[in-house]
């Protein structure tokens, strides 16, 4: 039987993969996908906590699932805004590589 620690470790590995994608990849779209992976890792740990800490009547703690619902909604809004920014950036600079975007570099 998987314990709570197993779920949390899987969530941590997923978060680390997303963090690695954000740090190592140079394409801004892939960086965005890494952000999505990190949000999903947070969702996984919240759902695991909700399932393992039952309420007094033996039901899962639904407050955590409501929080996950809110996170998914905010992530959807964030993806829409972020992709619109990427499209505007591509129109201005004709690139999605972060190394080509060095206007602010000193």
């Amino acid at each position: 039987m998987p314990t709570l620690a197993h779920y949390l470790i899987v969530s941590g590995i997923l978060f680390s993969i997303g963090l690695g994608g954000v740090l190592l990849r140079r394409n801004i779209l892939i960086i965005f996908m890494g952000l999505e992976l990190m949000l999903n890792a947070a969702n996984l740990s919240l759902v695991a906590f909700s399932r393992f800490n039952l309420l007094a009547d033996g039901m899962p703690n639904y407050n955590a699932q409501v929080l996950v619902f809110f996170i998914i909604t905010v992530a959807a809004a964030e993806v829409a805004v972020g992709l619109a920014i990427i499209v505007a950036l591509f129109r201005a600079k004709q690139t999605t590589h972060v190394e080509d975007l060095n206007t602010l570099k000193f």
Partner: protein
Amino acid sequence: MLAFALGVVLLRNPVSCAMSLVMSFVALAAVFITLDAYFIAVVQVLVYAGAVMVLFLFIIMLLDLREEKRRRVRLSAWVGGGLVVGGFLAALIQVISALPALKVTKPLVSHPLANDVAQVGFALFRNFNLPFQIIGVLLLVSTVGVVLLSKKELK
């Protein structure tokens, strides 16, 4: 799920990255079902594997992204990034495996087939009604922002 997530980071073609991201989301929905969170699993498939991925693929198509050219990889960047990620993961696993309170197996729910959607709905509309409406306003604001951002020129 973790293999597909690795594929997102390691694959070279953006379309393959997006496809493995879809598979990772679907596998995560399966994990949610094993945790008896049926509503969250369905929302995950609908919102992430449906809407968000269509948006990603549409943008990839719109920008006409090709397979990345093999650029000169800076070794220092990879070593630094790997150190940060590996250090974070090692610290996390050490903390989690050191806590005895986390080594509990799954307790039985009292009603395994209880109406999950109804329970989430009660919590959402009774206890969290105000945040729910604020989320609605946030979605409206983001929609307006996206339309404004993608206009050709701002007046």
